[in-house]
């Protein structure tokens, strides 16, 4: 008996061993280096049955190496009218590969994607987090979906974030033989292996053994750093709508068709449009008037139901409800313009300050937002329709400096939104201040903000209460102890809007008095915080998406009886990253300090990095330099 038992135990341990899944010991050292997660296997098999139907199989086997990778130990997946979740399952293995736990779809929690601004959406998601307590561990999730309506196929991004090494990542797309699949390999991504079998075409992308990469501060977006493949259908179908994505023109046509007939205004609004604009001859004034009317009578709410994720609620809905999402409000704006005899367009765009430039040679949905525009003879008037306070014509950092898809009856084509350079984004400040014998500061500031520098004071005017603004002003300035006792803001609307700010500030003991000396930093209100680390050799480019110019001039009066003992030297630096100039002039008790700082937009190579570090270190130091005065004897 004993012998037999032993035998069994032995067998069992062999079986245990061979059953081990993805033991951590099998990961190559090169992949473990500095990584938080190793993708053991990620696989997506997407089989297109017809332009509107597909099945999808996904598998993600991730080894979580330490607590910084913990967020990858979970899984979440969404579903809606387009995506049926057939099956999801997950298994947890410990470091040796022993199975610890297995879960099914019913074990996952279920949520709506709805947020504060969303009134209703039919998209929901399921999630599950093993959150195992002993690192390293491995999770293996599998998912099968039915796709009803194809608007996109999903790009292949084998390395999805910083600190993730990849053992293997595969992407397989199976199509009918006559299906035209479009793809574009970016940043050195491999070309697919294409095979044909039994009337189907199989495209396979595969990478193996890629060590973790790390994005650095101010580097371009992740998608500009790592290989990925853009994949898109040509002919597609969703919820009864058909389209062709093979060119911007045909993709635009699809969106145009969704807008068809949705621009009918109710009679009272038509009447209102004429009432407002018939007396105006200047077409620009007509646009501004209607934009103002739209702003005063609507608000933004997100509603995403079925094809409604793409097709706007019609103009009549917005007119009666007084709300809509970005596409509904833009469509409404275009309808108002049409009634006044002005031709406007909806423009599909990516909204966000941190944006990846549109890949112009690959037409697909690279967007998340809609605005309106009115092409004029000489220029174009751009209209952000989800804001009740924006100036007509101003796009700012949310939608400026980029390409977007304009929709018209011929389809669509890419256009450029207004470009805001360091010259437009200008902040000019004039300070008149006095320092008394105890070092107390009393200052009047007049500041004019333009372009993207206007966005913050714009929000101070329109988004918060006076009380909150006062609290903000009394906490944001880089002064030891101070009080902003008067503040006033005025906005001058325009294509390049401007905010004029006037502040009165007192700050006890701003200048430091030690014995008979007075230490005073004359650059009162604009001290650069930007510094760059030199801890490691720079790997990626540095990118600044927007340029700015800051011009300060400070006139300071100090008490009588002091003579300068040490005065910082004037500085004038010009680099490819921008310009910096600081001058200090002392005349008796008055000090005049000027500061000019221009930071240019651009992308700079790692070879320039140390120069960039030095430029910003010089500015950091100069901004804080102090004048030392000594009290005259007697």
């Amino acid at each position, binding site marked *: 008996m004993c012998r037999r038992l032993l035998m069994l135990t032995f067998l069992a341990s062999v079986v245990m061993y061979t059953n081990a899944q993805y033991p951590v010991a099998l990961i190559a050292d090169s992949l473990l280096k500095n990584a938080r997660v190793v993708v053991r296997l990620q696989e997506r098999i997407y089989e297109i049955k017809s332009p509107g139907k597909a099945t999808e199989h996904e598998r993600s086997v991730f080894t979580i190496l330490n*607590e910084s990778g913990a967020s990858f130990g979970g899984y979440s997946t969404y579903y809606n009218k387009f995506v049926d979740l057939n099956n999801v399952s997950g298994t947890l293995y410990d470091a040796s590969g022993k199975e610890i736990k297995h879960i099914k779809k019913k074990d996952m929690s279920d949520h709506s994607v709805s947020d504060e601004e969303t009134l209703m959406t039919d998209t929901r998601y399921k999630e599950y987090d093993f959150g195992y*307590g002993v690192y390293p561990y491995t999770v293996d999730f599998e998912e099968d979906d039915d796709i009803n309506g194809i608007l996109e196929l999903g790009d292949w991004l084998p390395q999805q974030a910083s600190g993730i090494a990849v053992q293997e990542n595969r992407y397989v797309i199976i199509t009918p033989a006559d299906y035209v699949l479009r793809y574009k390999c970016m940043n050195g991504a491999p070309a697919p292996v294409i095979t044909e079998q039994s009337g189907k075409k199989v495209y396979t992308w595969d990478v193996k053994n890629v060590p973790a990469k790390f994005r650095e501060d101010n580097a371009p977006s992740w998608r500009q750093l790592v290989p990925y493949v853009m994949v898109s259908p040509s002919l597609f179908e969703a919820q009864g709508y058909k389209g062709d994505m093979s060119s911007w023109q045909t993709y635009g046509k699809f969106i145009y068709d969704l807008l068809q007939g949705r621009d009918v205004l109710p009679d009272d609004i038509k009447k209102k449009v004429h009432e407002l604009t018939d007396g105006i001859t200047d077409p620009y004034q007509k646009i501004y008037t209607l934009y103002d009317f739209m702003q005063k009578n609507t608000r933004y709410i997100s509603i995403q139901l079925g094809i409604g994720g793409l097709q706007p609620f019609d103009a009549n809905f917005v007119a009666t409800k007084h709300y809509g999402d970005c596409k509904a409000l833009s469509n409404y704006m275009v309808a108002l313009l049409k009634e006044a005899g002005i031709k406007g367009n909806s423009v599909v765009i990516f909204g966000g300050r941190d944006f990846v430039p549109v890949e112009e040679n690959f037409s697909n949905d690279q967007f998340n937002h809609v605005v309106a525009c009115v092409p004029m003879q000489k220029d174009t008037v751009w209209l952000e329709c989800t804001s009740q306070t924006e100036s007509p014509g101003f796009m700012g950092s949310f939608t400026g400096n980029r390409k977007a898809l304009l929709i018209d009856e011929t389809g669509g084509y890419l256009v450029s939104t207004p470009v805001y350079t360091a010259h437009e984004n200008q902040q000019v400040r004039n300070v008149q201040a006095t320092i008394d014998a105890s070092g107390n500061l009393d200052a009047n500031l007049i500041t004019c903000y333009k372009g993207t520098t206007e966005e913050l004071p714009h929000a101070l005017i329109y988004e918060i209460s006076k009380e909150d603004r006062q609290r903000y002003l009394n906490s944001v300035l880089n002064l*030891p*102890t101070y009080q902003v006792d008067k503040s006033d803001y005025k906005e001058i609307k325009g294509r390049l809007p401007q905010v004029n700010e006037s502040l009165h500030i007192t700050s006890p003991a701003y200048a430091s008095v030690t014995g008979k000396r007075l230490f005073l930093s004359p650059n009162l209100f604009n001290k650069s915080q930007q510094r760059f680390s030199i*801890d490691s050799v720079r790997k990626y480019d540095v990118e600044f998406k927007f340029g700015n110019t800051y011009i300060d001039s400070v006139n300071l009066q100090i008490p009588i009886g002091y003579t300068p003992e040490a005065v910082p030297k004037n500085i004038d630096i010009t680099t490819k990253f921008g310009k910096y100039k600081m001058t200090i002039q002392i005349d008796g008790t008055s000090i005049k300090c000027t500061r000019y700082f221009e930071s240019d937009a651009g992308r700079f190579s790692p070879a320039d990095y140390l120069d960039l570090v030095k430029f910003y270190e010089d500015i950091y130091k100069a901004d804080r330099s102090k004048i030392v005065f000594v009290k005259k004897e007697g």
Partner: protein
Amino acid sequence: MLILKVRKILTLIILCTVTKCAIAQEKSPVKFGKISLDDFSPYTGDTSYGAVIIADIGSTSFVGNKKGWFSHVFKRYTRIKILNQKAFALATQQLYLYKNGDNKEELIDISGAVYTNDNGKINDVRLDKRGVFEEQYSANFLAEKFTLAGVKAGAIIEYTYTIKSDFDFRLHPWEFQNMQYPCLWSEYQVAIPGLMVYAFARQGFNNFYINKAWVSHENYLVTEQTNSNYASNSRDLNVGTPTNNQRWVMKDIKPARIESHMSSPKNYIDKIEFQLNKVSDGETFKDVANNWDKMSEELLKDKDFGESLNETPDWLGNTINKVAADNDELQNAKNIYYYVRDNFICIHYPNYNDINIKTSLEDVFKKHSGNEGEINLLLILMLRQKGYTADPVMLSTRENGFNPGSYPILDRLNKVICKLQSGGKAYFLDASKRHAGFGFLTEGCYNGVARVINASHPDSVNLSTDSIKETKVVLINIINGENGTLDGTAGETHGIFQSFNMREAIGAQPGNAVKVLKEYCPAGLQVTDVTADSLTQPELPLKLNYNFTINTNKEENFYFNPFIGQFLEKNPFSANERMFPVQMPYCMQNVYIFNMEVPEGYKVVEVPKSIRLKLGETDGGFDYLIAVANGHIQLQCSIRLNKANFDPDFYDALRNFYADIIKKQSEQIVFKKL
């Protein structure tokens, strides 16, 4: 459910012949649907809030139900004037319905409207009831979301809804103060049958404009189900009973402010809550008020909480013997604590409370993860298995708001920790934080009264911020180097809370410890040789060491601030006025000891004066003691806050104290070339 003893009701009515007093009271200023052009006249207050709540009026009354008892009916009516686009979001509202098992609160009525003044003609758009969407909000709450159409600047919006509820213990509370908008009239009225006695808990700083109580007689139709052996019948009872009415009104209430250095603003807004203490069956009053004895007993029997703590589970196997194999009692407790801390990761289950066991401790043990409660209950179980006295302690964290202490409200508690008794000492343990040491609780736990859950003596424990102190000691030594440079060495011993934060930050970026540590070094210095002592010994404070170099540049005058970027640059109390008390997370002591050789080739021409400052009589102090002797400059500086909580009245003193410190610390030493 209590069944009323009908016959006795009569007696009750006769006995309680309290005269119904007619009280002349100022009526609520507005009514749903009653809008006139006058209502559109311009608002004269601060329009920058974006909206003003004209009136927010709520009431709770009771009706008889079909379960032989009462349900309560909560009605709310709100009228808001939208002044500009800042407040358009108010047109979308969300309300919550409580549910527990099959029983849930019921939304029995909802209406809303938007009124605009169109050149002297009032237009209205009514709420389309199809536009009310229901969503599961969390495990026990449904959200009803609706949006009103037709909002623009100058519009008046109104909505009213009614919720019916069988949850006696959940009478709707009322918040008189809004977090964002001023409110001109906030009113709440309750009418509670004499058969139920609620205690009112009131918080906040504003005074009531009306606060009246009176008794009326009301009749309630209560239907009782009687189950005989043959059939199930129901009978209707007309229950007449004195009813306690109370009405509260506040006028012109400013929105609450979120200020720096405070726990949750929820603790301070004007609010009334209710606790059910007694119910009567018409004959005798029965004490139903929760107390901690009762609550502890229930919790310890609850399978989601304490039931498994007294079991001897076989699933633990040999773990405890393996983990706690030391001879020393305290060391073994530590071994168990660190085992749980390092082998179980803390997660949050969506829509689930962090104080309860979701599955079972066995499951937690097997999957090596659990929520805060599960992990600390597992710790308690394991400690008990080894023979220790260990109990759960329940508390409300700082962000979560005060725990009323004397009266148990489970909804208010959001954390479970462990109290261990060993060698005559008590230790509070939290194994859910990976970088915590034995006996360490995070700042958030220090929020006043916590409660030990123990069947025989559920004691309260005061985890007060005044009782803990964060001490930081910085030692700087600077000597002459070569070529007019000065070489500095720094050693900074951080307080327990900062040490914990730093360990967490380093843990979040494994392999990057030095990079993370550098972020804690003074910003203006180029530092080298950055190291940390006791990084992996969480019971010890973390010590940060680094070297730095300062260049005199051989200038004629060398100006030098002895704090090398270590001082406060900004007053932590930036706002110049205060609404609520200041609540620091702990008392504090910062010590700075500085020793410097006079730079070679220079002499000292000016040093700041030594001073000592006091905050209040004994609340805190600042010392700045500097001396020049034997070619060295020595500075000892300390900042002390001896308590953590200050009244708003004391705010100016506190702010000025810091202003004086910053002023002193900005002073410089002046050296001149020999």
